[in-house]
């Protein structure tokens, strides 16, 4: 076997391993209570709290609702998987298989991506059916959903790295990170209308770029230039995934 074919074989094996992890996560974690509570119920109640009694045309808040739902759903799976597996000792089983830690984490990111992207269809459809919102640029909307879900899922996987005795500790940590970012990402208020300090912080949140792409998909004005948002989401995904690999590797054996 030449070096090239051996490398291709290894990549194929690891990609296959990542896909098996995706299937396993879908079977085991999509319907776990913490995922449903923090991934589905949270955005619904946030949206209701924001909308109730405010004289805003419903179609104007549909992009924000979609982005917020995506933010919570895509980043909900990652923080659950590793702590849950550590506690039930199946993590030890996983890391003794010939699937690399990186492939396991890729599988976890794809699990979050699929979960977030699929569930984001619900607020999109609700927005289209119940309000006057309509899609102007499908490519931007789809790009915002997919790239956003990917970067949010990578954030979720990074947040799962610290060794915790209980999954609930990691879920708390993840909310400590996700909630502040939600308020500075132009979801409830367009970035242009946010105070100066918040406009400075907005660019460090991947949600700002995903929200911007989704907003322009629904025909609303974008804050960032059209090429910047997808680029930044890809960059965030790469950075967060790299950090996830580093910290998962460092803390891999803690608490086993």
């Amino acid at each position, binding site marked *: 076997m030449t070096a090239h074919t051996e490398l291709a074989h*290894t990549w194929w*094996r690891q990609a*296959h*391993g990542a896909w*098996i992890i995706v299937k*396993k996560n879908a*079977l*085991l974690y999509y319907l776990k209570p913490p995922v449903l509570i923090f991934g589905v119920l949270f955005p619904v109640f946030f949206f209701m709290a924001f909308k109730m009694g405010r004289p805003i045309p419903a179609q104007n808040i549909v992009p924000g609702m979609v982005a917020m739902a995506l933010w919570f759903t895509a980043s909900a799976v990652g923080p659950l998987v590793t702590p849950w597996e550590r506690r*039930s*000792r*199946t993590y*030890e*089983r*996983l*890391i*003794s*298989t*010939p*699937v*690399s830690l990186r492939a396991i984490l890729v599988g976890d990111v794809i699990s979050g991506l699929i979960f977030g992207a699929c569930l984001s269809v619900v607020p999109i459809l609700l927005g289209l059916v119940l309000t006057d919102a309509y899609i102007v640029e499908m490519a931007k909307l789809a790009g915002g959903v997919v790239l956003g879900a990917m970067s949010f899922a990578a954030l979720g996987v990074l947040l799962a790295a610290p060794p915790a005795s209980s999954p609930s500790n990691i879920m708390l940590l993840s909310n400590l990170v996700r909630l502040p970012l939600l308020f500075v990402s132009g979801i409830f208020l367009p970035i242009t209308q946010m105070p100066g300090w918040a406009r400075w912080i907005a660019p460090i949140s991947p949600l700002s770029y995903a929200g911007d792409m989704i907003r322009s998909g629904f025909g609303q004005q974008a804050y960032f230039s059209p090429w910047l948002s997808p680029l930044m989401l890809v960059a965030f995904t790469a950075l967060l995934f790299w950090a996830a690999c580093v910290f998962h590797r460092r803390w891999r*054996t803690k608490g*086993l």
Partner: protein
Amino acid sequence: MASVIEVCGLAKSFGNVQAVAGVDFDVREGELFGFLGPNGAGKTTTVRMLTGVLDPTEGTAAIEGHDIRTESLLSRAHLGVVPEQANVYLDLSVWRNLMLMAELHGVPHGQRVREGERLLEALDLAGRKGDKARTLSKGLRQRLVLCAALVTDPEILFLDEPTSGLDVVSARLIRQIVRDLNGNGLTVFLTTHNMDEAEEMCSRVAIINQGRIVAIDTPEQLRSAMQSSQYLEAVLAGGQIDAVELEQLPGTLRVSCEGERIHLYTERPGPLAMKVAQLAEAKGLQIIHLCTRKPSLEDVFLYFTSDQVQEPSQ
């Protein structure tokens, strides 16, 4: 016979605690290798390093020629692991648990289905195929873990206290399956502190104590190495012999009594047996029972894991 596991100076520290202090050993192809030691001796840490769960602090090891540090994926491809605590996915069915492990090891579809069904049958789990692992008893979960390890078609099987806390039926079944697999050429690395299990199953054993290998050989050789712990066991009827008289018999090292059984420790049990027989006849006593005994593996284990012994026997 070629070595399939070669361990060289393998060490692991957790902060200031040295769990494994530079162990060296090898396991040959087709061997059933026992790794014995008291609690906290470093058995599980060693297994975890060999199976890729923990990174060694120092030293290295090779599995089927693949370094566990630099070629960890290749080294892990050859292994099946049965940990002490059954770590199955409780919310997956028995069948899904098996298939998941086979898929992670890249076992082709036809082979994993065929092997999975055969193994469930062999380990008496076929009737529970569709049940969630959560519903299984401890013994059945451990059998499932063994199935999951074997369905990956490993060349080396690591068993970490596989029968610890199991009922007699499950423990016996697992031992029988492991023996059969080893008989068919599978290399088995068994950690245990069940001496009967090790004595019954292992072709060679290593004893680890305080992170160091203190003895490594066949159980028979280890027992023979303890010449001074061989003894003659006698049961006499029709009267008693004074212990002082027995101690004065040539070759007797010491005498102890356990109920009606008299134990005469010696390095040469054969000649001493004749002397005991002559003495009994002279005193008009009847010999009910007279035999020579070698130390058990448990005696060997206790000897090597006592605080006084630090040097390897080999």
